[in-house]
Every structure is written in structure tokens, then in C-alpha cells.
């Protein structure tokens, strides 16, 4: 069936199979491969996007459920060639190893800093608990979150 949704502030239409996830629709129908496909069960967070402003795993949203709704993916965070300050902070802090988890962590961090501009380490840990980095680069990821929040080490 055909769905109409706003992705990264632009209206889109897509023909989707009724049982497919929003993640599949984003990657395979709309050409937005930034959201990564790994566990497909909400465990890893690599497909994190904002659905109507709320952080969700795109793999656990039925594509049809996004019909008439608004999605922001990692591709929609920056402004043209200008990276989002969270993306800049991940680069600066070296919070990227293989890079697979990075888009999800960046989206989750943007969501956190929106709600809690100056998070404590415990708040960072809880907010990012649903995003796995299998390179285990968590120390640098914490550095990046603190850097983006302007927290002095």
C-alpha cells in the first residue's frame, strides 16, 4: 500500500509491503541508509530515529504506522553540509570506530540533549542504554556526549 509521511522535513510517498518496518521503508524505499539494520528486534538501537519527535527503533515501527507522521533520521540532523553539533562532537572526540552504531547513537544523543541539556554521566548511561557499540567504544562516546553538551571534563 502507499503511505505518505514527512521525512527530514520533506513530504514523501512510498509503496510498502503491509508487514514491513519503517526501517526497511526508509532504507529500501526512500534511499536513506543512514539508519542501520542490525538486530531487527529493538535490542541494538542502530536504527534509532525520531518519530513525531520521540526516539524510537525504526525496526519496531510498522511502516504503515508512520503514514501521516513525521520522521527525522540521522540524514536530517545536519543543515546541508553543516553537521549537527552532536555529529561534530563524535568526530572531534573520536567516538567512531567501525561506525555502524554511530547514526543511532547520534540520534539518541540529540534526543537526550534536547530533553536534558547538561546530563550527568548516569543520565547519559541511561539514555544510551538501548544503543550497543560492539567495538565497545563507550568511553569515547561518553566524551562526545559531554563535548556536545559543553560539559568540561
Amino acid at each position, binding site marked *: *500500500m502507499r503511505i505518505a509521511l514527512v521525512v527530514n522535513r520533506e513530504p514523501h510517498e512510498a509503496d510498502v509491503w503491509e508487514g514491513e518496518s519503517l526501517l526497511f521503508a526508509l532504507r529500501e524505499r526512500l534511499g536513506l541508509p543512514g539508519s542501520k539494520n542490525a538486530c531487527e*528486534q529493538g535490542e541494538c538501537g542502530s536504527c534509532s530515529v525520531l518519530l513525531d519527535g520521540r526516539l524510537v527503533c525504526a525496526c519496531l515501527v510498522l511502516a504503515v504506522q508512520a503514514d501521516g507522521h513525521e520522521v527525522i533520521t540521522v540524514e536530517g540532523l545536519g543543515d546541508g553540509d553543516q553537521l549537527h553539533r552532536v555529529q561534530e562532537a563524535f568526530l572531534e572526540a573520536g567516538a567512531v570506530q567501525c561506525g555502524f552504531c554511530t547514526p543511532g547513537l547520534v540520534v539518541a544523543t540529540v534526543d537526550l540533549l534536547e530533553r536534558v541539556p547538561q546530563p550527568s554521566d548516569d543520565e547519559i548511561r541511561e539514555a544510551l542504554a538501548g544503543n550497543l557499540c560492539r567495538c565497545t567504544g563507550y568511553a569515547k562516546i561518553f566524551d562526545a556526549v559531554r563535548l556536545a553538551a559543553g560539559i568540561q571534563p
Partner: protein
Amino acid sequence: MEVLTPRSLAEALALKAERPDAVPIGGGTDVMVELNFDRARPDALLNLNEVGELKGWSREDGRVRLGAALTYADAMRPPLCDLLPALAEASRTVGSPQIRNRGTIGGNLGTASPAGDALPPLLVEGAEVEVASVRGSRRLPLSEFLLGPKRNALAADELVAAAVVTPSGQPQTFMKVGTRNAMVIAVCSLALVADRERGELRAAYGSAGPVPALVSAPLADREAFAERVAAAARPIDDLRGTAAYRRHALRVLTERALERCLA
């Protein structure tokens, strides 16, 4: 496969009556896993995301009505978290922020997993489940709604509309054993209320029997209560833990919960 997207509860109930095989999907945190892994291919899905009546919560005559689409994130926010503190604590242990933003109380009831984290806190507060169909709606105690592992008392044409609770206002807590704080299915869990008003202790365990279940005793029986909870549980050995470990953990959790609530 077909996706039916009703815009009102009346429309949702009419569709469910017409298509009893349609699988309800709300936050999708259970249903989508089944779809993504090819474990289920239902002929129809009933997408409940656009049904406004199921969202949020309200007060009615001293009672609190939790809409089936109330998310765990909603349950963690004031003032609801102050009315039902054990439910808020349990909600905070569910998955991750991403999961808590989507997963719903109604979904936890519908799935009726022995490990459903919202179920023990609702049991100790004497929650009723409001189920609805085109035939009307009925309320039944949560303990009667839960029939077995992933089995509940819903008829084929019924949907979970709400959970209805009269907050006791008494000290309560929720505890959960798992390999980490986030993203775990409970090895076992426990909700407890020390109800001084009624002179009663109420505990409910999760992941330690075919359904989460309630154990109560007079407040005066505090010393024997941990043993009583452990003895009432009917745990099994599975990939997350052994029956013996679960029974032991329940004893420890009950003791700690009592200390916390009677301090």
C-alpha cells in the same frame, strides 16, 4: 497481509468483530519482532496507533484509568509516577528509552508474558482490566485476566481498553533481577506494597510462574513473608535462570522490598 487502521475505538471494535483474526499492534515492540523474524504472518494487523481513546490516562472517582496505549515513558512522568510509584519503577526497567517510548501497558496485558514488567505492580494495586467489544465492555481483575504463559481472557472480538487502578497511596516498590539494568527480560521480578491502612502486605512476582501472581499476608506476618512469597512461586528452569535461583532471588528481593517499604 492487510493493515486495518481505525480512527476511533468504535471503529476498532467493529473491525475486530469483523476480523477476529486481526492481530492488534500498538507500540509494535512485541509484534514487529515476530514479523521481522518471519515467525508470524497474520492475515491482518489492527493498527491501534490512531485510536485517540486508548491514549493517556484519566482519573475517575478516586480511580486511575490507564489507557491501553499508555506508554512506559508516560507511566514514568509526574504526576502519574507519584500515584503509581511501583509501576513507574517497573516502567523504568523496561528495555531502553526507545522501547519505553513505544511499548504500552495494553500491549503488556495483551501479550500476557510471565515476565511482563507492568503486571506485578498492577497486581499489588488490585488492578482491573477493562476489555471492550461491540457487545459492550467489562472489567475483570487482572489476576483473572492472566490465564497462562502468553494467554489471557480476551475473547476473539475483544480488545484491551484500559487498566483501572485505585492507587493505595501506600509505600511500594518494584525490583527486577537481570544481567544488566537495561534491555533485559526479568530473570525474576517483584512488586511489593506495605499497606499500613489495610494492615496487609501484598507482593506479586514476575518470571517465576506461568503468570505473574499475587501473594498477600497480614502486616504482622512480616518475618515469614519472604519465605511465603518464595514458596508461592512456581518457577521453572529456562535459559535465563534456574527455578532454584529464582526462588532464592525472590526471597532476597522480598526482604529488601520490605526493608525499603517499612523503613
